[in-house]
């Protein structure tokens, strides 16, 4: 029998959380939209089509696409490795994947500067590679640098979603398939992948959402407005400029990020719903 809880307690709890959400989450976001449209549509649209904004949007999208591609591939490999094989140091590797979760993104950015910056130990190596290939690749204060730190901070999202999923499913089906003579590729394609696909998609959405919004790590390695700035950095620059117009513009660009976030949220919920339905037996 279900224990009947006090309805007053229930409504107080619901009321408190609703008030909290309203105050802490909904109102500030609403404020962003309100402020961005306060001075008219024209200022809003000009802010969104400004050269700096478009450049920032481009850099943000590049970073997101790369981070998504690299981390999806890595996430699949890591979760496959960590759930289907036993080897020494497995727990250590599993813990290492979580480093980006526990380290402040600014530290990640600074670490990249220390490694690939002018006095970094890897710079001579990079210079040699550039000389060899005739390229002019730089890994800090450049778009590739932004891409790298974005990959770093979004590293664990996908594998953290897929590993628990594969763990609960176990290895039985794979062993059965292997016993019948299926190759590793067939086993992955026909057996493992269908199990992990919803978790994978969910992780990819989280990864993309984080890549859009990353500030600290990108801030450390990106200094050129209009070239390597991402949307969050552009918003910060506009806001810091301090004029009434630029602050409104900052809110306009922010509303763009908020919209992207809302889209991600909706996608996330759709995927979550499907994932739950599929895995329920």
């Amino acid at each position, binding site marked *: 029998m279900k224990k009947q809880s006090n309805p007053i307690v229930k409504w107080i709890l619901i009321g408190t959380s609703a008030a909290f959400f309203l105050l802490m989450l909904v109102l500030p976001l609403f404020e962003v939209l309100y402020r961005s449209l306060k001075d008219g549509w024209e200022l809003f649209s000009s802010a969104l089509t400004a050269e700096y904004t478009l450049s920032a949007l481009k850099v943000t999208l590049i970073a997101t696409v790369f981070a998504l591609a690299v981390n999806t591939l890595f996430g699949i490999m890591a979760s496959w490795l960590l759930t289907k094989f036993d080897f020494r140091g497995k727990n250590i590797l599993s813990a290492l994947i979580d480093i980006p979760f526990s380290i402040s993104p600014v530290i990640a950015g600074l670490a990249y500067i220390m490694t690939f910056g002018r006095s970094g130990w890897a710079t001579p190596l990079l210079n040699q590679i550039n000389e060899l290939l005739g390229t002019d690749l730089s890994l800090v204060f450049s778009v590739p640098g932004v891409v790298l730190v974005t990959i770093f901070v979004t590293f664990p999202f996908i594998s953290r979603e897929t590993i628990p999923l594969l763990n609960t499913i176990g290895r*039985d089906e794979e062993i059965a398939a292997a016993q*019948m003579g299926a190759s590793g590729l067939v086993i992955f394609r026909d057996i493992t992948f269908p199990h992990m696909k919803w978790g994978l998609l969910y992780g990819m959405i989280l990864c993309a959402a984080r890549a859009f919004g990353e500030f600290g790590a990108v801030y450390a390695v990106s200094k050129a407005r209009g070239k390597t700035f991402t949307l969050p950095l552009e918003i910060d620059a506009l806001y810091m400029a301090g004029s009434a117009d630029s602050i409104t513009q900052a809110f306009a660009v922010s509303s763009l990020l908020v919209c992207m976030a809302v889209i991600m949220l909706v996608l996330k919920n759709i995927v979550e719903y499907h994932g739950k339905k599929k895995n329920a037996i």
Partner: protein
Amino acid sequence: MYVEMKNICKKFGSCEAAKGITFGIEKGKLTALLGPSGSGKTTLLRILAGLEQQDSGDILIDGKAVNGVPANERGIGFVFQNYALFRYMTVYDNIAFGLKVKKMEKKKIRERVSEMVSLIGLEGLEKRYPDQLSGGQRQRVAFARAIAPKPDLLLLDEPFAAIDAKVRKELRAWLKEMIRKVGVTSIFVTHDQDEAVEVADDIFILNEGNLEQTGSPKDIYKHPQTPFVAEFIGTSTVLESLTGFKGFEDAAPGKKAIVRPEFVEAFKSDNQKFKSLLHAVEYGTVENIAFRGSYWEVTLSVNGMQLTTNRSLERRDIAVGEKMCVLLYRAYVFDGNGAEIRKNKLLEGVDIEAL
């Protein structure tokens, strides 16, 4: 011998799962590997299938050594304990999987799968997913999936463990009939003696990594060769010594004896049927009466030792604490070499089986 294992040893850390096991199985036989949990029976099956590597020893299938031959080239069909059906594939795709992997023609795959589906009687359910099937249906699909590629040898790991008791009985008969029909040499692992006795042609009893005894179910039941087998098969009571019982005075003292319920008769002192045997009875007190569905299981205390007998529901009611006459027909007595059946001396000349 169609399948032979020679001196198979396997250790997991300090745990010895197989201590030099040797046996042979004839073609077409249905064999049960029976033992308590931890006896090494599943390990043995997995070694045979190539899912586990033995530390030493040889495996021969159809005269060919298969040591080091990968699992998928041994011509073995395997039914896993919880079936390991592919959850994201339909019944059809599950059964077809092994054939697709073998690169069989599409048309032939379709023919073989529909043949399998009608064999297991699941026509019309080809498009279902495993989570839309009952436990029994899942087992049928697992069976069909294992035999679809026409293996030379079928291995089943606890095939009935995941099914509820009611369906289990039905499925035992079904599986036995299926294996007869297909005619494939089969080995299954079980910890349930009823299952082994009912389904298998031959039973191999394993205990702590040793093969204790092999033989037909009746053979093993009637002539247990080790104390373990005598205790494990049937419901048995172990007696520290037999010498205290009438008719067994000359049994070697200090040797353990094992008594089955059917070796014991308990009756009220005014019983008509047994009145000619009263000279051979001991007196005991009823300690416990348990209802077992179709009979009572009665535990009696006799000379400070406990004996168990089964009592028909058709007989007179008895109560706990009641004094009863107890007749011990025979017992297994073990010495270093094996088991020996001891008969009650006072009953010599009496045709017990006719009672």
